[in-house]
């Protein structure tokens, strides 16, 4: 058996979980009610080439993206049906020339707006314009704590320096800052320094997110998978920092679930409290959902309203709730705690999105997946395949020693 790295999740809902509280009251935000927050992937264009990108392998071209008018209509519709927050993401959302206009529109219709960005395209003037338009929060991704590792992972020279600069501007403009650090075997040794960096940047929050293996990350899994020892060290570092920095920096931590005992409650349960909208307007149960073949996703360009798609479309209802579950999920006490884990991961690892997520210790494949992770983590593959529009480009031979 794999070692126990996580305690089983508590059976009672966290009282600070707004969703849980709203659901308890039996309001319209109860199960399958309209989500509180929606992710808008404005574009797949991005100057970075991170090998763990969560976008699909087949990236959408600029010419097929929703227009400014279409996105505005989407934002109005979301506000009208009860969505409270919008996350502007991508790709790189600042690659859209109309971002300030879209943020302004979100403010006008009453949506709380978060920007999830690599930051490298931002100027101080543009960030100030976004703040002026009502942007509420900025999340900047970091690939390391210094340029050698960080710029290599990002596949872009000078990216790290630029990110630090934009992080300072963010705080100067009095916008709250989240540092998002995506962690894997080749940068986990920098975690302690990344935590210090987040404190020095005066960030409010740090997300220590171990890579999740879909899309580009799955393609690069052998180069990214951490060792079990790294994960144990990481957990200790994060827990110590969470105590030490209480009231200064909030730290959220996502472990790589190949090493977990229980699967993550992916997206809070399929079609339960989250959806995202792809650059071309597809309404998706999660940003990786298009990796599952055989599911048709409706678009905002079609004949149905977003509320109809959320409530009635086949793709959302396929794995919604617990009725679809096979054993061992169906008779499991945790079925409404983790909802069987992640559908995309079940598909990626078993070929059937309706199977139990192999991250779960009760999956017949768990042992095999755990061993695979250990084997890949101790292998000598370190070369990345960079994310791009031409199906990925292997890192040059001489770059990996950087």
């Amino acid at each position, binding site marked *: 058996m794999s070692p126990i790295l996580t305690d089983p999740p508590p059976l009672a809902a966290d009282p600070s979980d707004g969703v849980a509280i709203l659901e308890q009251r039996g309001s319209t935000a109860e199960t399958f009610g309209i989500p509180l927050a929606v992710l808008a992937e404005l574009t797949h264009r991005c100057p970075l080439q991170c090998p763990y990108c969560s976008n699909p392998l087949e990236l959408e071209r600029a010419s097929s993206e929703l227009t400014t008018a279409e996105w505005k209509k989407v934002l109005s519709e979301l506000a009208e049906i009860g969505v409270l927050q919008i996350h502007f993401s991508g790709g790189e959302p600042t690659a859209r020339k109309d971002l300030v206009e879209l943020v302004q529109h979100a403010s006008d219709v009453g949506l709380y707006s978060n920007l999830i960005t690599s930051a490298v395209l931002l100027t101080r003037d543009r960030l100030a314009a976004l703040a002026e338009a009502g942007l509420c929060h900025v999340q900047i991704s970091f690939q390391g704590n210094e340029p050698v590792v960080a710029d290599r992972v990002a596949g872009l020279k000078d990216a790290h320096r630029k990110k630090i600069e934009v992080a300072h501007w963010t705080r100067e403009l009095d916008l709250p800052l989240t540092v998002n650090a995506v962690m894997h075997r080749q940068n986990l040794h920098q975690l302690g320094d990344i935590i210090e960096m987040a404190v020095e940047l005066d960030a409010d929050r740090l997300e220590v997110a171990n890579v999740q293996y879909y899309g580009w990350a799955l393609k690069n899994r052998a180069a990214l998978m951490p060792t079990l020892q790294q994960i144990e060290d990481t957990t200790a570092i994060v827990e110590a920092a969470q105590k030490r920095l209480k009231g*200064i920096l909030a730290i959220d931590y996502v472990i790589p679930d190949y090493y977990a005992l229980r699967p993550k409650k992916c997206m809070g349960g399929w079609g339960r409290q989250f959806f995202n909208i792809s650059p071309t307007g597809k309404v998706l149960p999660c940003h990786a959902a298009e990796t599952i073949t055989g599911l048709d996703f409706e678009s905002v360009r079609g004949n149905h309203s977003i509320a109809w798609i959320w409530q009635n479309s086949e793709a959302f209802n396929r794995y919604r709730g617990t009725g679809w579950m096979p054993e061992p999920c169906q008779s499991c006490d945790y079925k409404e705690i983790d909802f069987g884990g992640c559908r995309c991961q079940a598909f990626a690892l078993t070929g059937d999105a309706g199977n139990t997520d192999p991250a779960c210790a009760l999956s017949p494949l768990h042992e095999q997946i755990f061993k695979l992770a250990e084997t890949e983590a101790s292998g000598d593959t370190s070369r990345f395949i960079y994310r791009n529009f031409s199906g990925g480009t292997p890192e040059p031979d001489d770059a990996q020693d950087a």
Partner: protein
Amino acid sequence: MATLRSRHVTVSEASRPVLPRHAKLRFDETRHRWVILAPERVLAPDDIAVEILQLCDGVRNVAAIIDSLAAKYVAVRELIGADVIAMLQDLADKGFLTEARENTA
């Protein structure tokens, strides 16, 4: 850096608390209840918290907020005072409440 500021706010009767620009107290028409919108979070404050937060305008100090609540509910000031300060401190610790600054303009 001059812009770095301490996030530690200690709430006392003299504090003049206010929600920071990134924490928005709003009535959610769809779900018929008050919510606080914060970075990537939605909080659901209870009725008493909502009433107190509505008084946090950056002008009134905590003493005035307590006075106003004590008068409204005909309550013993000392009793509710401690509760009000504890609640505000909790929100401040979570980053959803800050202190109005003197003549920063």
